[in-house]
């Protein structure tokens, strides 16, 4: 009898304890997430809305912002330089993202096959990814030197007269693609490698027994299985690539002519050199919408079930 009573009392006190725990747990949880949440609201959420507002104003910091309605957007429609920068960055993305995917996936597949020294190779391929955009830009200015640079020297060995790379408006953007691919391969290769290791062997074995050749193994097993990985790599590379700035700023200062001027470059100069904060926000917002639209399209094509 007393045993049962005791058990009931114990049970009750346990319940009270748990519900008190649940409440204190909730309070503590809010305290725990307070800093990231506050910083998110202040430095990401609010600025997005403020950028949207600023895009309808004229603001030079010194005098109060003046509401000008759609004036900035109208100006943008006829801004030839903005179109040039958009064209440049689209060209850059079209060269950068596919070559990045092809190279890092091929390398990852090769590394996944070999038995010896895989770690050594992986470390070597990863190394360029450690360099800062500025250090890489500085180094490649020298490597791409038309006269004394090793790139043109090596091209010379096989009978090719190398271009003047950064000084030529038709090769300057390609030079930036080379540098950024060199830097970006390592990280994406590691992501692909992890994706490849997640594909079960029996898929390949049974397909091989059915007489599938290497190409169809890739087409029907590897590539579909890596779809979420590719989606992730493409999304992140694209968001980064559309905001190209550092290398264009350090290697070519946007030149020659405007051949390597990017939207971010233009936003930077109109915002912080010319103090046209309103117009710069308009450009930033339009670029944001472009990136968003392309990410959405990418999600529609590739991403269906890869975000969980």
């Amino acid at each position, binding site marked *: 009898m007393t045993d049962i009573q005791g058990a009931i009392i114990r049970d009750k006190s346990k319940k009270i304890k748990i519900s008190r725990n649940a409440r204190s747990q909730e309070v503590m949880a809010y305290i725990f997430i307070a800093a990231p949440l506050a910083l*998110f609201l202040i430095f990401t959420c609010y600025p997005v809305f*403020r950028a949207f507002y600023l895009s309808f104003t004229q603001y030079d910091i010194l005098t109060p912002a003046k509401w000008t309605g759609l004036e900035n957007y109208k100006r943008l429609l006829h801004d030839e330089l903005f179109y040039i920068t958009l064209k440049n960055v689209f060209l850059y993305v079209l060269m950068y993202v596919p070559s990045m995917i092809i190279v890092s996936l091929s390398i990852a597949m090769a590394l996944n096959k070999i038995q010896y020294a895989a770690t050594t190779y992986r470390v070597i391929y990863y*190394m360029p990814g450690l360099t800062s955009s500025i*250090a890489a830009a500085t180094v490649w200015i020298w490597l791409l030197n038309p006269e004394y640079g090793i790139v043109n020297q090596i091209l010379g060995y096989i009978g090719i007269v190398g271009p003047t790379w950064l000084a030529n408006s038709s090769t300057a953007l390609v030079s930036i693609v080379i540098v950024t691919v060199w830097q970006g391969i390592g990280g994406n290769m*590691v*992501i692909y490698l992890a994706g490849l290791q997640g594909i079960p062997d029996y898929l390949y074995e049974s397909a091989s027994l059915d007489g599938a050749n290497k190409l169809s193994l890739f087409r029907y097993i590897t590539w579909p299985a890596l779809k979420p990985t590719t989606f992730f790599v493409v999304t992140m590379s694209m968001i980064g690539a559309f905001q190209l700035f550092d290398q264009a700023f350090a290697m070519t200062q946007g030149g020659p002519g405007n051949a390597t001027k990017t939207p971010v470059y233009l936003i*930077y100069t109109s915002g912080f050199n010319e103090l046209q904060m309103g117009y710069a926000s308009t450009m930033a917002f339009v670029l*944001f919408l472009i990136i968003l639209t392309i990410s959405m399209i990418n999600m529609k094509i590739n991403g269906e079930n890869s975000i969980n």
Partner: protein
Amino acid sequence: MKLNTRKNVIGNSILYLILTIFAIVMILPFYWTILTSIRYNEDMFSLPIKWFITRITFEHYVSAFTTVPYAKYFGNSLFLATMGVLTNLFFGSLGGYAFAKLKFRGKNAIFKVLLSSIMVPGIVTMIPQFLLLKNFPMVGGNNILGSGGIGFLNSYWAIILPGAAGAFAVFLMRQFFLSLPDDLAESARIEGAGEFRIFWNIYLPLTKPALAALSIFTFQGGWNNFMWPMIILSDPEKYTIQMALQSFSFNHATEYGPMMAASIVATLPIFILFIFAQKYFVQGIAFAGIKG
């Protein structure tokens, strides 16, 4: 059977050959940079180029450190990157723990919103962030309405504060905490331990690999950051190493020796980190990539 193994050996050799050629391509820029940085100018500008070195000089390193106060910039960047690591480790693991192990209303919704900020391009928040920091009330000569002074501009706070508790840090730590069992907390709770103690004494020590990976990424991000410090910092005394490197190579465009020496110095801390924590670099990237 025999034919098969021979085919395999040939296939493997070709694979190794391709991987080795590619490895040389990837590593050649490092070799050439190091070579240039310890080479006399006469050897640097001679044709055909010499692939190996016969004599060594350190004059380029000396000139990189004496033309500009490079050591000071190195220290500035070290400070900024370290602060970024410390704040992100603390707030990231605290937040990540809450999202993984505690029950509270709105958990999933808040997490999703927070995570979405990873997808917001930095360019769209750049100008408003700048204005916000400039008009921050009660600092940098500003009055309570945030006008009159420069706020947080030209201050390290403007670099540390916005990134002190990044969504990526919270996300990475949450993923790791999710992989740890729940009942550790349950039993500690029954014994009456507070939530912070459960987090700090029981769970946090188990997350060393994740903390290592997060430290590395945050340090690399902070150390390599260029555009934002350039916008914020106007006092040359406060410049970061990347800003210094960029302006050096812009102002001394033909002095390739010092440029290469300075580039190597600006890359060294990340390389040292990589040598000691290579495992965590790779794990962390794969982890973030797969779970993303």
